[in-house]
C-alpha cells in the first residue's frame, strides 16, 4: 500500500523572500494566478447570468468597488484616511451631467469628467495634504456636504431636482461590461502600482515615514497629490458612470454612503491589499440591496452583519481566505 502524506502546495512555491517566486510546474502557476483568474472569470460571466434586478445592483457595486479600491489605496499605501468618496462621485457625476446636458456625447463626457473631476478634487484637497492626522478625513468629508447645500441653496445645476434627460448606456450589457473592464484594469493596475518599485514604493515610504521622504529630497505634497488624484479619478469615473446609469444627475450623488461604505468595505474585506476592498464592496453592496424588503429594519440587519464580519473576521475576509488557501493541504504519495 502506497504511503500518503499531507503537503502544502505553497511551501514549494514561495521562497521566503519578498516578491520572489520559484515556479516549477503548471500546478504551481495555477496556484499563483488561480484566485485572480477566478475573480476575472466571475466578473466576465456575471453580467450575462444575473436577473435584471441584480444587473442594476452589479453596476452600482462596480462604482463602490472603485471607491473602495481608492479608499484602500490611500489608507493602506499612502496613509491618508479619505472620506471623500461622495466628493469624488458628486464631482464626476455633475461634470459629466453638465457636459452632457449641453450636448457633449456620453463617451466623451465620462473621460473628461474622470480627469477634470479628479484634478478639481485634488486641487480643493491640496491645502490639507501637508498636514498629518485627521484633517484630510474631515475636510474630504465636509466638501460634499458643502457642495450639496450650495446646490440646494443657490438652485444652480438644476437645484434640488437635478438635471434629467441625460444619455443612458445603449443596453445593460454595454453598461455592465464597461464597468467590468474598468474594474479589471483598475484592480490589476493598482496592484501593479503598489507592489513595484516606482511611485508605489515612494508612496509606501510616505505612509511609513513622512519626515524621511522630506529628507530624501522628495516633495511630500506632490506625491500625496498624485495619490489623491489616482483615487479621485476612480471615484469621478464612478460618479460619471452613475449619471449615465440613471440618465439623471442630482444631489444624491453627494450622499454620505459613498464616503462611508468604502471604509466599511475595506475593514470587512481586509486592509493592506488592493483586493481586500474589492471583496468587501462585492459583499456589502449586494447584502445592503438584498435587505431592502425589510424596509426600515434594513439598517439594523445591515449593522448586525457588519458587526458579525468585524468580530469573526477581524483581520478581513481576504486575509482569512488567503490563509486558508495557502494552508490548503492535499495528499501526496511518498
Amino acid at each position: 500500500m502506497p504511503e500518503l502524506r499531507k503537503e502544502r502546495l505553497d511551501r514549494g512555491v514561495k521562497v521566503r523572500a519578498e516578491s520572489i517566486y520559484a515556479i516549477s510546474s503548471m500546478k504551481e502557476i495555477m496556484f499563483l494566478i488561480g484566485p485572480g483568474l477566478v475573480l476575472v472569470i466571475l466578473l466576465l460571466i456575471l453580467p450575462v447570468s444575473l436577473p435584471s434586478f441584480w444587473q442594476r445592483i452589479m453596476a452600482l457595486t462596480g462604482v463602490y468597488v472603485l471607491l473602495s479600491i481608492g479608499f484602500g489605496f490611500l489608507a493602506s499605501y499612502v496613509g491618508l484616511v479619505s472620506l471623500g468618496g461622495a466628493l469624488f462621485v458628486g464631482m464626476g457625476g455633475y461634470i459629466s451631467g453638465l457636459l452632457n446636458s449641453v450636448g457633449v456625447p456620453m463617451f466623451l463626457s465620462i473621460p473628461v469628467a474622470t480627469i477634470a473631476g479628479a484634478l478639481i478634487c485634488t486641487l480643493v484637497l491640496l491645502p490639507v495634504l501637508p498636514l498629518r492626522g485627521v484633517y484630510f478625513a474631515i475636510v474630504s468629508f465636509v466638501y460634499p456636504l458643502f457642495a450639496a447645500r450650495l446646490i440646494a441653496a443657490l438652485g444652480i445645476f438644476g437645484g434640488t431636482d437635478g438635471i434629467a434627460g441625460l444619455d443612458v448606456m445603449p443596453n445593460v450589457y454595454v453598461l455592465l461590461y464597461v464597468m467590468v473592464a474598468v474594474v479589471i484594469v483598475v484592480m490589476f493596475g493598482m496592484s501593479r502600482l503598489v507592489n513595484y518599485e516606482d511611485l508605489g514604493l515612494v508612496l509606501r515610504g510616505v505612509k511609513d515615514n513622512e519626515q524621511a521622504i522630506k529628507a530624501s529630497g522628495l516633495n511630500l505634497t506632490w506625491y500625496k497629490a498624485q495619490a489623491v488624484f489616482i483615487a479621485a479619478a476612480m471615484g469621478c469615473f464612478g460618479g460619471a458612470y452613475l449619471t449615465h446609469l440613471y440618465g439623471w444627475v442630482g444631489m444624491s450623488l453627494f450622499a454620505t454612503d459613498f464616503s462611508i461604505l468604502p471604509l466599511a468595505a475595506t475593514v470587512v474585506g481586509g486592509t493592506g491589499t488592493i483586493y481586500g476592498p474589492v471583496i468587501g464592496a462585492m459583499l456589502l453592496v449586494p447584502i445592503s440591496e438584498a435587505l431592502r424588503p425589510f424596509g426600515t429594519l434594513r439598517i439594523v440587519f445591515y449593522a448586525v452583519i457588519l458587526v458579525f464580519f468585524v468580530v469573526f473576521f477581524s483581520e478581513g475576509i481576504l486575509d482569512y481566505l488567503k490563509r486558508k488557501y495557502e494552508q490548503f493541504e492535499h495528499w501526496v504519495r511518498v
Partner: protein
Amino acid sequence: MTNDDIILRVDNLEKAFGGVKAVDKVSFDLKKGGVLGVIGPNGSGKTTLINLITGFIAKDGGKVFFKDKDISKWQPHKIADFGLARTFQVMRPYATLAAYKNIIPPLYSPRAKRTAKGKLGDRSAVAVDILEEVGFERDARVPYKQAGTLPLGYLKRLELCRCLALDPELIICDEVFSGLSMSEIASMVPLMERLHSAGITLVMVEHRLRELFQITDRAIVLSFGEKIADGSSQEIFENERVKQAYFGGEDSYVTSE
C-alpha cells in the same frame, strides 16, 4: 563678503519653544570638505539647530547660507535636493519595506536623477551597492530583511545610506554613534573618515567626544541654546564655560552653612 571655500554659513539662528530659547543666536561657518563637531549637554539645542538648518522646523530669526545661497526659507525637500542631507537621531526607516527598498525613494529624487545624468539604471542594484558601501556586506541577507527588524547599528547605517543616495555635498549626522556598542562604534569611525576623504563635508552632532575628535579637530559647544565655544579640542577642553556647562561651575555647588 562670502568666501569661496565656505559651504555652510549659519548666521544668528534663533528658535524659542514657548519661553524656552532652544537656539539662541547661534552663528558658525564651515569650510568645504571640513568636519565640524557639534557638542553640548542634553537639551542644549543641538537637534533643534539641525532641524532649523535643514528646514524641518520654522526659524524665529537668522539665516542659513549653503553654497552661497540663502536657504533660510526653503522647504526640507528642496534643501535636501540642493545637496544638504541629514540623518535623524531617532531613526526613521520605512519599517515595512526591505532594507534596500529604503534607499530607493531617495533615488527617485530630482537630485539623484540629475547627478546620475540619466544613467541610474536598476535602482534596486544601485540601492544594494550603496548599502554594501557602508558595511551591509558582512551578511548578504541583511539588505533584503524588513527595515523594522534590523538592529540599531544597521539602522544608523541605513540613515547614512539614505543621505548617500542623494550624492550630497554636506551631511549633517545627528548622533550616529549613540546607542551603539563599542565594536559598532569602532567600525563606524572609519566609515565616517571614508565619507570625509570622499570629499563630503560633515557636521556631526555627538556625545562621544573621543570618537568625534578622531575624525575632526574642530567643534562648537552649545549650552542652553547658546554657542559657548568654537575651536579645536584643546581649546574646548580648556574653556571655562564648557567646563561649567558640563561639570557645573564653582557657584553651582550647594554649600552648607
